């Protein structure tokens, strides 16, 4: 029963695929709507499915995986909602799009619940294959094909590294199950040293997917090249899934090796924060800007993770939850940037937005300030909790780097606001669709009003973190 959500989404995707193939007319709208409904129902199923380990120890369900599953669904639903008419507008309105999203989500929940290095790899590949196709979904577009190819080549490399790391760990531990690995390493110092090499490869493979520096090079290109609705998906769901997995792997089977991996995660965190802050400075394309922003944001999540205790997990989960909401909102705004059906992506295209459409401008300003971590917006609280985790664990240096980089990054977030509010211009964007408006306003409201009721998210994260730490993995 624990695999119910996986089966449900997988079967739903297949039914839709068949329906799409055999339908005479174009049903992409109906299929997208159906995919959203499937995901929403799956969100309910996640809570019906009992906790525990199933499939001979391959997959696990607990409070932590539930939390991450919900975030993945949220990201996917948002990305689908803003794609509804956008895809048609830019000429990629095929029904395969929602189906591929569903298959990617299947991979992600396998990944989140993986309790064995093999199911981890299977989930990783299911997700990646769907994502490769999605990146190149606008196959008539040179940029999209280029993005797809880049993502594929680098993704294949990262899969290879991951698999190599898994084989090394297997060699030293003699098992691929998370529980077995944890046991094998308890007390056996030599095996621990040996497999830390394997862990490095596993870490690198996963770092590719969350675009942590120095494995971030694909991110700006793919963000820019892929159709915006796809980028919205890339920016949210896969990041959550892989980060959740990273938390489970590092604190589960390798939890006893904290001293071996902590420095690595710290380096990844510091590098990502720095690259994200500096790289975004000179970007003119708002999607590239968001690419660098994502690199920086992942750096903060990794800073939380580096602390390596329950507070760290809580910080990571709160950060991811808020990050998903804000990213969806930003991409909702970017999707809405089009003139006469043609997307525009330069930041200057937003000039004069505040005078023409104050609600849109306010929403985008809320997201930008939120990403910059300015109170009273939700992004402040996400940063607060990872800083708390880092300071508790004595990672003062990392926290100082985080402070400096968030100051630098504030410059480019502010630039977007400056262009909208201070510069003159006539954006003249096309009317927004219901889906876009829903995503933009819902995300803006959530980002701005989080401060009034932070308890549900923080409490759920605390609960999820304790579920993870008490289960061991």
């Amino acid at each position: 029963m624990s695999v119910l959500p996986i089966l449900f989404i997988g079967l739903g995707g297949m039914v839709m695929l068949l329906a799409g193939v055999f339908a005479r007319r174009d049903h992409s709208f109906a299929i997208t709507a159906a995919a959203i409904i499937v995901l929403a129902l799956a969100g309910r199923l996640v809570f019906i499915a009992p906790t525990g380990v199933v499939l001979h120890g391959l997959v696990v369900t607990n409070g932590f995986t539930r939390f991450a599953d919900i975030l993945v669904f949220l990201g996917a639903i948002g990305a689908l909602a803003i794609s509804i008419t956008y895809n048609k507008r830019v000429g990629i309105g095929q029904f395969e799009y929602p189906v591929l999203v569903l298959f990617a989500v299947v991979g992600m929940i396998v990944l989140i619940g993986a309790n064995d290095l093999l199911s981890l790899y299977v989930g990783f590949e299911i997700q990646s294959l769907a994502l490769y196709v999605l990146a190149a979904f606008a196959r008539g577009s040179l940029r999209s094909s280029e993005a797809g190819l880049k993502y594929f080549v680098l993704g294949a490399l990262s899969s290879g590294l991951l698999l190599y790391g898994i084989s090394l760990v297997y060699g030293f531990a003699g098992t691929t199950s998370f529980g077995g690995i944890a046991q094998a390493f308890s007390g056996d110092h030599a095996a621990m040293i040996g497999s830390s090499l394997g862990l490095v490869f596993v870490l690198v493979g996963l770092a590719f997917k969350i675009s942590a520096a120095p494995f971030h090079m694909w991110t700006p290109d793919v963000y820019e090249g892929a159709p915006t609705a796809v980028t919205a998906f890339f920016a949210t769901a896969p990041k959550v899934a892989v980060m959740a997995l990273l938390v489970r792997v590092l604190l589960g089977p390798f939890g006893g090796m904290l001293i071996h991996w902590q420095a690595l995660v710290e380096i990844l965190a510091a590098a990502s924060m720095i690259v994200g802050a500096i790289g975004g400075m000179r970007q003119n394309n708002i999607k590239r800007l968001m690419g660098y922003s994502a690199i920086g944001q992942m750096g903060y999540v990794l800073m939380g993770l580096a602390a390596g205790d329950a507070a760290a997990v809580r910080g990571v989960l709160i950060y991811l939850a808020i990050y998903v909401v804000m990213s969806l909102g930003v991409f909702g705004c970017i999707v809405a940037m089009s003139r006469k059906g043609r997307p525009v992506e330069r930041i200057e295209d937003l000039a004069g937005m505040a005078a023409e459409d104050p609600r849109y401008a306010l929403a985008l300003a809320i997201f930008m300030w939120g990403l910059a971590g300015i109170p009273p917006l939700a992004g402040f609280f996400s940063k607060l909790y990872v800083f708390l985790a880092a300071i508790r664990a004595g990672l003062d240096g990392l926290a100082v780097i985080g402070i400096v980089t968030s100051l630098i990054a504030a410059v480019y977030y502010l630039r977007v606001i400056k262009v909208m509010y201070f510069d003159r211009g006539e954006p003249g964007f096309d009317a927004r669709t219901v889906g876009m408006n829903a995503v933009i306003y819902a995300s803006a409201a959530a980002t701005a009003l989080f401060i009034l009721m932070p308890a549900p998210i923080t409490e759920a994260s605390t609960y999820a973190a304790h579920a993870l730490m008490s289960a061991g993995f």
Partner: protein
Amino acid sequence: MITLIAAAPILSLLIWLPVLGAVIIFATGDASEASARSVRWVAFWTSLVELILALGLLAAFDSQRTGFQFVEKLAWLPHAGVSYHLGVDGISLLFVVMSALLTPIAIVASWREQRRVRAYMAAFLLLEALTIGMFESLDFLLFYVFFEGVLLPMYLIIGVWGGEQRVRAALRFFLFTLAGSLPMLLALVWMWHHAGTTDMVTLMHTSIPAAVQDWLFIAFLLAFGVKAAVWPLHSWLPDAYGEAPVAGTVMLAAVLSKMGSYGFLRFSLPMLPQATLYFAPLMLALGVIAIIYLSFAAFAQTDMKRMIAYSSAAHMGMIVVGIFTLTVEGIEGALFQMISHGLVIAALFLCVGVLLARGQSRLLEHLGGLAVRMPIFATFLMIFVLANVGLPGTSGFVGEVLILAGAIKVNFWLALLAGSGMVLSVMFMLVLVRRVLFDQSRSSVVLAPPDVGAGEWLMLAPLAVLVLVLGIHPDALTIPFDRAVHGLVQQTGGALAMKADLHHRMLAMVTR
């Protein structure tokens, strides 16, 4: 009335009423002229009701009681020791009232603003809510949210409605303030981790290791120093004050700068007594440098608005000196001066606004001879200039004398140098008055500008009355905060348990 206020959650009302006004304005208006008119009235009435509530708070406040009053406490982040905790004592009470007083005046001052009125008024109401919330917070996290949240409306106010260099000024303002307050975020997180709570009342009674206190003090110094524009953290100030619209400058100079000096009193002194003692000579030196250096800088300005801006920063130096004398006289003087400076500087910037509204230049070389053409305006300007230089009979005198009385307890030379600021400010303020009001040789751009109108009376008269009344009846202010200041000095001194030695050591450190 008073019992009603004591029963109602008045502090929350004071925060949320302007927010409500801002939401109504943003949600209902459109771009038409009729809408702009009603938006102005909604904003004005909101801020006026807010002022009435704040005056009710003042009346209901019991100045004989120590500790915080009208306390409200609600769960906010459960299990983390963070709550929505509000309360006022004698120190914060007056700033709440001052913010509530200056917002309607700022709104009246911008009555003629035509560009994007809806967003403008909403921004001012939000600014009011955030500043008042900051002065009322008794939870460090809540305080930080308000402290930093002020950036958002102020950034837009400078950037959208400012002068020619507005974009640069807005960015500098934002980044300087953010750079200052991010270290405080680390300090906040550290104290949260250390004490397990962010409740300020608890933090005031939590002992912090001396080694850490120094770091925390530096973090607080950066955050509050940038806001209060303590030399050398003031370099954002001339741009921001010069480029912001007049009402924005009023809020910046009168209210936002006080957030910094209030922070020193609320955090640095009671929570970090050892570090405060250790750094007090440094702070006194910075204050004295600010007084003297910025006075000379003001003297060199050719632009009336920038001259007043530098004068404001120089007076903030005086306030810093008063606070870090760590004596009852000095701190009371600093508090008095904070209120007085808020009123006087606001009025002076409003006078600049009056001239700008008549198409006059801000440049001193283009002004002159207005005493004959605008006698009522000239009278107002004269009152505020004299209050600014600390003439007896005005509120400026009381604050400065008290500060000097505190300073002379610490060190004669300190008092002398700080006192020289009074002389210097007379120098450049009289130059200002001569150029603007009397210099007949220069002719004004507009030959016969109309004198002060009804709206301008409404802005300037209350401030003038307050400045004079407080100059004659200083106890109207000192009685509410007297107990709080005694408590503060005792706490800072008591935590050190070496109060008798305190002045002696500081004397040695300053004169060495």
